[in-house]
């Protein structure tokens, strides 16, 4: 053919209708969940977590295939948010598979966080603590060198290249010499297997001193401390002889900032009944120390923590506390101060981006095995920190073995298969049809502990109540407050 005839051939253009896959309004629904917002609008969430806020009635129209009732721009939004498809063969299937995989990438990992309960000894007797011992008996309540090295060998034999080794207690720093031995041993061995290890020490800061901090600086160890709020509250929650826990934290924090630098120090709070009245004071306390985030964290409703009057409160009360705190924090942001609530930020990352956050409670498949492993002071290996509290009450469900085992034995523990089942919210009753399941988790440990069943019963699960409420709060804000969405974005972006 002559070039000019070819040119003409190519110049026959088709119109838009030619490219339409839709045949006589026969739309296909992709897997999505939905929920009504306070405004009456409908929240539609796709299987990969893209959300759309649509007018009342939209879902019904979709189900009845009355698409002439839906505006063109909303129809296009439904297509591009992966809620419907125009053709039988879902042409975006492979794209969706990639998206789903990206959202669930944590499931392909092994534990990156390895917690070593280096000692059970502590000089505090905190309200909510159930495992620590006030004791001088190192023999009995510290890791033995032999077990410690076995634990480290196991950690280094696990598949991840980047590992965080976290020292917990009791009060970890009461066994500072042991920590030093552990790190020296780990450093030597990690080099041989080409792994990068980050170290964290969790401490109440009471025993902190220059020598320890200089060591932390040298070894690039992060310091994570407990700070429950203002002086009175902190001292009420965190009992110790002399009632001076707070002033020790204050001194310890300032010293830590000086020596290891602010960026290497973090603080964590636990909410007790006493805290519930003081969300604003607690947040101000964090600001006072120059932190730009707080994690409003409920108490784990396990074991004898729940038997203590100051640890036993209803989720509704916690949500009131959280909501008041969140509003206060948002107000701070509106006034130009960058400050974020960590739990909200974890959820927001899942809501506003294609990715997820590696936070064990909010994972499905559950974060057990693929997020954290716990080595207890006596050589027992648990799937999660909370399992130690259950063990304290003679429930060893989540103990998979001891440091004397190898990974093959540990991972062939039957509990792991059960978790594989009970840890996937896509098919847990209640969750499977919940609008939020792509953002939420499963938490078989909590349901086992509180309901005696790893699958759990959602209508009175405190886990469900908390997440459903928090997500409701978040989405109603997104729906009603455009400026809040901008603040939320800044939290996800960390700036």
């Amino acid at each position, binding site marked *: *053919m002559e*070039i000019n005839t*070819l*040119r003409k051939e*190519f*110049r026959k*253009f*088709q*119109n*838009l209708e*030619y*490219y*339409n*896959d839709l045949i006589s309004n026969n739309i296909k629904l992709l897997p999505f969940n939905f929920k009504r917002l306070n405004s009456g609008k409908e929240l539609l969430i796709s299987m*990969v977590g*893209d959300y759309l806020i649509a007018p009342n009635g939209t879902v019904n129209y979709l189900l009845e295939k009355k698409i002439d009732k839906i505006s063109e*721009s909303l129809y*296009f*939004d439904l*297509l*591009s948010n992966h809620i419907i498809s*125009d053709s039988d063969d879902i*042409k*975006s299937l*492979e*794209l969706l598979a*990639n*998206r789903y995989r990206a959202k669930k990438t944590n499931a392909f990992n092994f534990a990156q966080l390895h917690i070593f309960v280096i000692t059970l000894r502590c000089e505090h007797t905190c309200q909510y603590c159930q495992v620590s011992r006030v004791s001088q008996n190192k023999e009995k309540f510290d890791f033995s060198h032999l077990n410690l090295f076995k634990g480290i060998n196991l950690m280094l034999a696990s598949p991840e290249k980047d590992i965080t080794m976290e020292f917990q207690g009791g009060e970890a720093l009461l066994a500072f010499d042991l920590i030093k031995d552990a790190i020296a041993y780990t450093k030597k061995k990690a080099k041989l297997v080409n792994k990068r290890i980050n170290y964290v020490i969790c401490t109440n800061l009471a025993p902190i001193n220059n020598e320890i901090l200089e060591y932390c600086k040298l070894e690039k160890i992060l310091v994570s401390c407990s700070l429950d709020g203002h002086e009175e509250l902190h001292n009420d929650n965190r009992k110790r002889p002399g009632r001076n826990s707070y002033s020790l934290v204050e001194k310890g924090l300032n010293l830590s900032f000086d020596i290891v630098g602010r960026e290497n120090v973090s603080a964590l709070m636990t909410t007790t009944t006493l805290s519930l009245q003081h969300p604003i004071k607690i947040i101000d306390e964090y600001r006072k120390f120059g932190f730009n985030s707080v994690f409003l964290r409920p108490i784990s409703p396990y074991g004898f923590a729940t038997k203590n009057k100051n640890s036993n409160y209803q989720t509704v009360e916690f949500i009131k506390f959280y909501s008041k705190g969140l509003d206060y924090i948002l107000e701070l942001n509106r006034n130009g101060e960058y400050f974020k609530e960590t739990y909200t930020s974890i959820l927001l990352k899942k809501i506003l*981006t*294609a*990715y997820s956050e590696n936070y064990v409670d909010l994972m499905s498949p559950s974060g057990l095995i693929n997020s954290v492993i716990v080595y207890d002071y006596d050589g027992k290996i648990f799937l999660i920190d909370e399992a130690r509290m259950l063990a304290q009450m003679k429930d060893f469900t989540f103990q998979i073995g001891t440091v004397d085992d190898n990974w093959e034995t540990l991972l062939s523990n039957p509990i792991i298969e059960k978790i594989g089942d009970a840890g996937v919210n896509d098919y847990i009753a209640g969750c499977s049809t919940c609008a939020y399941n792509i953002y939420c988790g499963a938490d078989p440990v909590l349901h086992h502990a509180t309901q005696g069943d790893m699958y759990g019963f959602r209508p009175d699960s405190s886990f469900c109540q908390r997440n459903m409420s928090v997500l409701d709060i978040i989405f109603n804000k997104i729906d009603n407050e455009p400026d809040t969405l*901008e603040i939320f*974005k800044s939290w996800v*972006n960390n700036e």
Partner: protein
Amino acid sequence: MNEEIKLSWKGKIHMSSSELFVGRVISKEIKNQELSVILEGKDLKTDRFKLFYLDSTDRLEDNSLSNIKGLNDIEIGDIISVKNSKIRSVYRTKSNNNFIFATIRCNSNCLMCSQPPLDVDDTLENYLIWNYTIDLLNNSPRHLTITGGEPTLLGERLVLLINKILDKFPDLLITILSNGRMLALENVIDTLSNIRYRKNVVFAIPLYSDVYKIHDHIVQAKDAFYQTCLGIHKISSLGFPVEIRVVLHKLSNPRLLSLSKFIHKNFPFVYHVTFMGLEIIGYTKANKSELIEENTTMAEENLLASLKFLSSWKYNVSIYNTPLCHIPESLWSYAKQSISDWKNSFKPECERCLMKKDCSGFFTWNIKYAKVKPFLEKP
């Protein structure tokens, strides 16, 4: 090729024994306003070295082309190909924006294509030309664009060229302008995975809508949207940087913000999103009524909202090829001067404009249609 860009010329062939010649300009002489150029290179079919002569007057000598108009653009060091009576500029030594023209073939047929495709298999020829051109290069180009047609239709040969030039100049950055559709195919991805310097090769892939049928209509190819989307995922998972390019016109403007959100959710890994002004050349001229935006207020608002959205999520965003007097001042910080040296032109009125030094001006071929509003006071 387009006459406006002065990259190809025609002349009268005389006694040439070569079918396809590629050579470097070693001399350029002007006598009595007549131009003669000597090329030194190789006949690619016989693999023999020789000289070739280009003249603006009649010249009756072996291996020559005569009666060529407008040769002035040619410079010593440029690399030129000669096929039959046609000359093409392959490599311009002074240019910041050299490009490999991979093929005139394309599997799409975009309404606003500036380089309308043809169903002619020129892939071997273009490969041979560049395979030898790389041998002739003494210095690294500052930047290289691989364009077409659809470059990935070159297949294995594309990989050979890229590896060859990057072996020679490992710091060179290459941008491939691909519609991304072929990248959805496993065998194409397998082939491209043989590129050894993935970080040096950016795939710049156009996406015009978040709605499949709007995109398919714009590129005039069924299922192109899904193929391109998947292609973006696949090429990125090989480790190639991906840039998404959006051409602004009447069909893409209305859903620009939705497209930006779609990019954020589906392609969060892209390293650059660029919005480009429409080129009134090629097919665009034929589809003007469908493409030229009348509702400029809506278009501006959508562009601004899109840029704000993408930059709030920390994407690197730019506007190319749009003069400053065509966009609100709030968008100026995103406007980039085009990297290409032959696309920018200004109207005579622009001489009075205080913003000219920051302005990208117009595509040369848009000038005819362009209206300007020179800034006479500092905005």
